[in-house]
């Protein structure tokens, strides 16, 4: 009998073990400037945002970084998070946590082969992803999904977060006040909103609280992912985002041989003036706003409708993802898609 394995299953899970994807009914997004919460409800086999609430955070309360302490003012964050959760009427202990992209690292890995054994594959991914992590790889929680699996060529989308950093966010509500069953970088939740297009690549730009993430999507595959900090001033931020978009576009054209068909822009809470025009000029592509579909928040009115339009894209993305997935996939299926 495998007593060690049995004992390990009963002891506290290690930092390297992550849960399979699941979508709880309540989502909490913690960004440097705000905390947004959304309650999802199932309506006729699809998810819909039923409630949404936003609380602002004081400056410097959260400073996202993949390797350092993120929450500088835990009391303020806890107070805001508790207010949001109370407004949502969260009676459940389970909730999803969406973090600033800068708090995690996402990478697209290309391998010749992926071991069938789950543990061996995880070791390989950890080693491969560890080259780009600003902290020891053994301290990382890693999860990945297979994008392409052909003989001699495997592509993975891997996400990693330092256990200590994620633990700070997970305990934001205080001890005994619930445990997140889903932790993702916010931009990851936007991917389901992008329509599939095989004839050309698509560039997603997610600007949120001085951080911009550029994602290149080809068909249903992520080809490139990068997160950069932009300058706080609005005009500087526009310039930085446009520069980043132009660089990613050039890099994709040169290295990935991908021509961009369109650029999706999601700037939260509001799009800086002239950003779309600047992006169009820098990339030479059609720039479209990636906004949450109104039908995903059809029951929201008043301020909640306004908050949904300004902050609700990630919640809408996960609601759309639940439609695509159908039901929470198991870990094995998630890795072999």
């Amino acid at each position, binding site marked *: 009998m495998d007593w060690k394995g049995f004992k*390990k*299953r*009963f*002891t*506290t*899970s290690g*930092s390297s*073990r*992550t*849960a*399979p*994807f*699941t979508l709880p009914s309540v989502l909490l997004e913690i960004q440097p400037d705000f905390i947004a919460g959304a309650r999802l409800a199932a309506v006729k086999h699809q998810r819909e945002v039923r409630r949404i609430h936003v609380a602002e955070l004081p400056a410097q309360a959260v400073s996202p970084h993949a390797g350092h302490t993120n929450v500088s003012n835990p009391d303020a964050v806890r107070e805001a998070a508790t207010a949001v959760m109370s407004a949502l009427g969260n009676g459940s202990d389970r909730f999803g*946590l969406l973090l600033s992209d800068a708090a*995690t690292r996402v990478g697209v890995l290309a391998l010749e082969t992926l071991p069938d054994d789950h543990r061996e594959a995880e070791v390989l991914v950890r080693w491969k992803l560890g080259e780009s992590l600003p902290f020891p790889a053994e301290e990382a*929680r890693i*999860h*990945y*999904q297979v994008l392409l699996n052909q003989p001699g060529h495997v592509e993975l*989308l891997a*996400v*990693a*977060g330092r*256990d200590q950093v*994620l633990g700070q966010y*997970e305990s934001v509500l205080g001890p005994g006040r619930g*445990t*997140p*069953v*889903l*932790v*993702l970088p916010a931009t*990851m*939740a936007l*991917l*389901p909103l*992008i329509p*599939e297009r095989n004839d050309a690549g698509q560039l997603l730009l997610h600007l949120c609280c001085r951080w911009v993430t550029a994602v290149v*999507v080809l068909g*249903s*595959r*992520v080809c490139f992912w990068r997160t950069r900090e932009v300058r706080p001033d609005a005009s500087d931020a526009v310039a930085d985002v446009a520069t980043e978009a132009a660089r990613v576009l050039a890099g994709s054209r040169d290295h990935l041989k991908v021509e961009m068909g369109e650029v999706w822009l999601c700037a939260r809470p509001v799009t800086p003036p002239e950003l779309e025009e600047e992006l169009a000029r820098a990339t030479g592509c059609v720039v479209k706003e990636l906004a949450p579909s109104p039908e995903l928040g059809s029951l929201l009115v008043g301020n909640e409708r306004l908050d949904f339009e300004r902050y609700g894209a990630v919640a809408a993305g996960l609601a759309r*993802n639940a439609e*695509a*997935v159908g039901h929470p*996939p198991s870990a094995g*299926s*998630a890795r072999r*898609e």
Partner: protein
Amino acid sequence: MKISLNLAANPSLRDRYALAVSAPTAGVALVVLILLVYLTRSAWVNHKAEQAQIADDTRQQATLQQKEAELRRYLGQPKYSGTYREVKFVNELIAQKKLSVPGLFDSVAKLLPVDVKLVRLLYAEGGNGAAVRIEVNGRNQGALDEFMSNLEKSPDFADPAVAGEAFDKQNSSGAGGGVTLNCQARYLGATPSEETDDQ
């Protein structure tokens, strides 16, 4: 595209079920605790009862020992010492199964020929066993010789010896007379008869 990534820590079985099983576990533990308390109390009560029983037995034993000592003192008086010795002797013989009065008579009777009758049978304690003195009267010398021969062959007796022999006078009617023989032997005890062995 759909995503299936998640950085949430995978909860262990303990994390998942610890709270759910804690209440039943506490209930079971409480029941076991109550059972243990009940068993301990029962064992303690039994222990106290057995201690009281042992104390009673000890007191009774002391009383009996005291009575025994009194009886010993009573029997140790001079007027009871002779009886005590005789009884002790008989008890010893009975214990050794060497003396059985019916058995002695049976042993002697089996030795008597038809013409010989037992006149007297004496039994005396000797230094090397039980001495038996037998006085028989025979019609003639031949009958007495046969008796002596039987006595010598008998496994119940040892060391037979003739102590005296006398010829009786005839009475006035001409009847009687004969020979009277006194002999002694050491009685070894009655051997089981064949009939008894067969049984």
